[in-house]
């Protein structure tokens, strides 16, 4: 026998590994990422590369500090994915150091301080995103209308370098508020939703990804497709996305019906900002979401409700990052109270008693 350890079975295993799970998530992110990189051109490509490379570097550094083996943890793809997700939420033309600081925050503070992969309470990418937003509000809110690669007026390779690494002021010329923040501003000026919507990206633009927004957040359709792929491949389950988007849509729908002038439509809520990315790729983060079906439904619904509340009533135009972090904090509690029912036992954990039941019937 080549394997002499007499461990208990099973002596067969599904073709699965942590690395495979991470790779599948990355594959599902590819289309939306490609569209984002294309829409926002060279500066976005540089920022994306800097963020992902910094995340891997930060992972290597943390592993070295923690005296953990490098190879298995670097190759599992988790650091790449964290960097990737963070980059997707950044303003596309943000300076390089936003990516670097974000990656360090995500990997070191968000993940390794808690003990590394599987141990973190909060989604690392969202920890970094929220920390960046609070620390560097200017850089983190400078969005722009798409400048597709090779289109007239889009920065070339070298101009892109200047924007990302050189502190070029070119972004001021093209900056454009995201639809969510545009509506927020207009509402505060007493202009109704209907009218405000006319000056910003259309629902169709938001759906296909030709709107202003985070680097990879804009194409709701491709993010949805990627999410459905992950559900089909059973990497994630449908519960969190469905509960999150469903709650967001229902709340938005109710408010919109009551007062369409002050509240945007559910459709707008679903396709704008980080709703799709958040529902399928961020809230579903395996480590920081609950494990049971009922827990996932509650978690998703909580995320959806918080997103709506923050977008509508708080001072920030977008709330996915905050919503997910707040619900992450509830995950241990949810897991403690919402467990699956054990076979042969009732919900309280007592053995089933048929004599009682038949007496009732």
């Amino acid at each position, binding site marked *: 026998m080549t394997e002499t350890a007499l461990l*208990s079975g099973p002596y067969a295993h599904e073709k699965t*590994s942590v690395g495979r799970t991470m790779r599948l998530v990355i594959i599902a992110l590819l289309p939306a990422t490609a569209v984002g990189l294309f829409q926002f051109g060279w500066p976005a490509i540089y920022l994306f590369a800097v963020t992902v490379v910094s995340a891997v570097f930060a992972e290597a550094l943390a592993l070295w500090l923690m005296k953990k083996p490098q190879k298995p943890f670097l190759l599992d793809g988790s650091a790449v994915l964290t960097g990737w997700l963070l980059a997707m939420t950044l303003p596309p033309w943000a300076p390089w150091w936003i990516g670097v600081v974000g990656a360090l925050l995500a990997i070191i503070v968000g993940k390794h301080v808690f003990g590394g992969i599987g141990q973190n309470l909060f989604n690392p990418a969202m920890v970094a995103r929220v920390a960046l937003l609070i620390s560097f509000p200017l850089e983190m809110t400078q969005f722009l209308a798409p400048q597709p690669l090779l289109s007239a007026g889009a920065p070339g390779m070298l101009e892109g370098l200047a924007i990302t690494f050189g502190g070029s002021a070119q972004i001021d010329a093209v900056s454009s508020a995201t639809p969510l923040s545009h509506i927020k501003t207009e509402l505060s000026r007493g202009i109704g939703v209907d009218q405000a919507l006319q000056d910003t990206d259309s629902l169709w633009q938001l759906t296909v990804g030709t709107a202003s927004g985070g680097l990879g957040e804009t194409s709701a359709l491709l993010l949805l497709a990627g999410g459905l792929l992950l559900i089909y491949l059973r990497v994630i389950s449908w519960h969190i996305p469905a509960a999150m988007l469903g709650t967001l849509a229902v709340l938005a729908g109710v408010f919109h019906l009551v007062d369409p002038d002050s509240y945007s439509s559910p459709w707008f809520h679903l396709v704008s900002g980080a709703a799709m990315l958040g529902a399928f790729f961020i809230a579903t983060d395996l480590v920081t979401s609950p494990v049971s079906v009922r827990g996932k439904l509650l978690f998703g619904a909580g995320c959806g409700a918080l997103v709506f509340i923050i977008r509508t009533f708080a001072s920030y135009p977008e709330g996915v990052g905050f919503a997910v972090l707040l619900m992450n904090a509830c995950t241990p509690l949810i897991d403690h109270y919402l467990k699956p029912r054990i076979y042969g036992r009732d919900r309280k954990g007592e053995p*089933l008693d048929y004599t009682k039941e038949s007496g009732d019937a």
Partner: protein
Amino acid sequence: MKLFKIRGGVHPDDRKARSADRPIENLPMPSLLHIPLQQHIGAPAEPLVTRGQLVRKGQLLARSQGMISAPVHAPTSGRIVGIGRYPAHHASGLLVRTITLKPDGYDEWDDDCKGEADPFILAAEEIASRVAQAGIVGMGGATFPSAVKLNLRERYDLETLVINGAECEPYLTCDDRLMRERPHDVRDGVLLMARALGVSRILFAIENNKPQAQQAMREAAKDFSELQVVGLPARYPMGSEKHLVQALIGKETPARGLTAEIGVVVHNVATAAAVNDALRHGRPLISRVVTVTGGSVTQPRNLHVPIGTPLDDLIAYCGGFVDEPAKLISGGPMMGQPLPSLRVPVIKGSNGVLALSALEVRHAPEMPCIRCASCVDVCPCGLLPLSMSANIRAGSLEASVDLGLLDCIGCGSCAYVCPSHIPLVQHFNYAKGELAARQRAQHKQGETKRLIEARSARMEAIKKAKRDAMAKRKREMAAKKAAEAAAKVDGTQAAEAEA
């Protein structure tokens, strides 16, 4: 028939095709048989033969002792060459009491082995008693004495007999072949068990990956309206007794209870065939069908093997190994036991011997848990394997018990899907074993304490008795002295008076 939904489960690659089309072959009689006295759950059998004695095929070698036990019979005629200790058919490879028999080559039946031409005239008690005498145990691997289960009619209100032909473990095909090749014997065994149990409804459940077996059993059962063959979706662990019953009748067995509490008794296909052989032909359980397969076996086969045959002989008959196997397993790959060597005998519960290649085992280094909850999704018992395992690792076994550790059936679905390759079942088995050991230690401690207290009470009583006796003696002495003194005084007084 409408089936009910069961929770969780996995779809492992079943790899049954390698041996499913190989008819059952009789293994040539080996040169030595090692027959362990404990091949079942319960008390080991007590030997009745001595070294050097000649025995005949089917002769009782060791009688059952206790309520839950099973006798052991001679698989062939020959001479007893030893009653000693031999490696067990178990992961530990510990030495256990074993009778070694050297076959004489004549394979002569004992005169006492007589069957009934029509066993269906026998009373329920008689059927159960003959099943007990034949040493029949659950042949699906659990090896619980079958007669004990047949006698459940005395304590429970039974309605249904379920025959477990799911054979949901990958690789194994011995039950499949038995149903295809001996459907009438299996059917008669089933009907006899139903008679012993006094039930009028029989559900014969076979997974849909065995269409020929389903066909053969339907054909054999067509004149028996009480016997219904039911197709089950192929999913592991469909053959888990409690889940099978739930799928068929829609009721869950209460936790830590028996299926009999909801009116159902489950028996295995091979057990049914053995019951038929015992009642109709008077043959005790002295042989069984074993699937020998796995990527490292040259020619996978289904073999009819005398109990006690060393596994070496089975592998040799199948052409040996193609390459060095990564794992040797007794049973299926999901719940089977690792074997330390092939120097162990076939026992009543051996349904398969697997020699798996590294490619099949797909062993990978363990990674940290990423809380993906795959284990929660597939657990057929609704447990949280990841939390149980984390608690066990942290040393809080009680917390894992609170999470339902003792409701775990050890099916291994969780470990099968774990992307981090965490040996979850190993953790659970460790915790179950450790808890049992602690319970024993605690029991022992309690007993010791009780005995010490009893002893000190006894010593105290003895001391007290001694003290009392001493005090009594003292009092008597004092009384005597006083009396003497009084007598003396009396005497002087009397003398004085006299004077």
